[in-house]
């Protein structure tokens, strides 16, 4: 009888599988990506390597010495343990973070624009206390700009009613408001000494959300040639909530990671973070294989660093608050080894 090894499901639960079962999961994950996104499959040696990583009974795994990558932490200065400054110092001093991120718990540009002066003051203080680079992070979060939270017509209500032109006009209005907020916050934080800005979970509200992010990135790049601009995605596929929006002649609805990278690069981003969401009903091996296959064309085409999102519920890391180190270390190693990432 084949030996069964402990492994994880996408929700973090522990299950037992044979090596053959894990290999089948890996192949199915790759096939799911190929079928859905029309990407090339992983090579046989890459599939074998994934199987080796996930069929090991070891509690922990890691990349080879010398093959380490840059770790950028979104949300690292968010008052999780102590004050925001103490959290940033904890990530620097105790967690070996390569760069950290100051942020507000209401992680949206629309919300933080009202307290930007205080955020800038916090950035100044953090910059005096930390040696590692500090970026400021928040989400474009376009949904906050429509009624009842904002002034624009609510496209989520208009679309089901068949009022498409009004829904599109509402999103276009929201884009301009969001760009203004993101640029203003970005400028204030840059002038306070921030080393960069992180547009996190871009395109969470669809193609209009992504367009706002790209426009904001473009404006900040024009003003600050060496400002660190990171665009991190919300998911693997840009939803066409508007459907007709373009950036530099490229229709944004329906873009997969490689095409997302191309427009992000054009918009002046210096780091791009593809995100592949986890299917909690599938195994961790299936999810890691699918994520690697979806992101590989993006890394191969990149001219800027790729910092893949490999956190809770993305990049093969299970969707659970208390993630086991066996699952995180496997996802971490799998993505770095297979994709040759620049960072996580």
């Amino acid at each position: 009888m084949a030996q069964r090894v402990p492994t994880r499901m996408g929700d973090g639960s522990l299950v037992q599988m044979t090596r053959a079962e894990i290999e089948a999961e890996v192949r199915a994950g790759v096939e799911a990506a190929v079928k859905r996104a029309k990407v090339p499959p992983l090579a046989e040696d890459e599939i074998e390597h994934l199987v080796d990583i996930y069929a090991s009974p070891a509690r922990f795994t890691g990349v080879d010495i010398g093959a380490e990558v840059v770790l950028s932490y979104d949300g690292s200065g968010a008052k999780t343990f102590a004050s925001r400054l103490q959290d940033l110092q904890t990530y620097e001093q105790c967690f070996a973070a390569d760069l950290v991120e100051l942020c507000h718990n209401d992680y949206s540009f629309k919300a933080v624009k009202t307290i930007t002066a205080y955020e800038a003051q916090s950035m100044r203080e953090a910059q005096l206390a930390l040696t590692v680079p500090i970026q400021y992070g928040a989400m474009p979060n376009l949904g906050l700009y429509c009624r009842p939270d904002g002034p624009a017509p609510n496209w989520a209500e208009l679309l089901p009613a068949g009022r498409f032109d009004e829904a599109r006009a509402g999103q276009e209005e929201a884009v301009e408001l969001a760009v203004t907020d993101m640029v203003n916050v970005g400028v204030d934080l840059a002038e306070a000494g921030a080393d960069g800005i992180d547009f996190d979970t871009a395109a969470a509200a669809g193609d209009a959300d992504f367009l706002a992010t790209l426009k904001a990135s473009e404006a900040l790049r024009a003003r600050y040639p060496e400002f660190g601009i990171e665009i991190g995605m919300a998911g693997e596929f840009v939803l066409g909530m508007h459907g007709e929006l373009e950036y530099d002649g490229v229709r944004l609805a329906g873009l997969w990671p490689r095409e997302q990278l191309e427009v992000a690069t054009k918009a002046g981003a210096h780091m791009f973070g593809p995100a592949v969401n986890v299917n909690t009903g599938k195994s961790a091996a299936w999810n890691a294989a699918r994520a690697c296959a979806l992101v590989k064309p993006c890394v191969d085409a990149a001219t800027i660093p790729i910092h893949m999102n490999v956190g809770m519920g993305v990049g093969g890391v299970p969707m659970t608050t208390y993630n086991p180190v066996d699952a995180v270390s496997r996802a971490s190693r799998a993505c770095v080894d297979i994709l040759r990432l620049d960072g996580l």
Partner: protein
Amino acid sequence: MFAMPVAHACASGLGGMRAAGDLVARMQMARGMRLAEAKAYVAERLGVEPSELSDSVLMNERRGDLGLGRLTTFEISHPDEPTAIEAKTNIGDLLDLEIPAVRLLEERVHRSR
């Protein structure tokens, strides 16, 4: 929460200030350098091989020699070495980068005028 950063740092991280990860990160952020290029740039400036940038023993020595800031513990302190903003001044010089917080310091300290 705890497992995520610690597991990633142990599995695949460059080590931050324990090694030279923050320096490589700065080249990615400011210049958009991909990993191999950023590692080669930093390694050349430090006088080491790119594969040595994650070696916390060697990098601790280089950081001390060059005044790039080092971690302190309750057993080990470095009272004669640069503080964070002072270390960032040295990092900017070493990497030929304008670090925003250092620029602000220079602009606002009267002695520099």
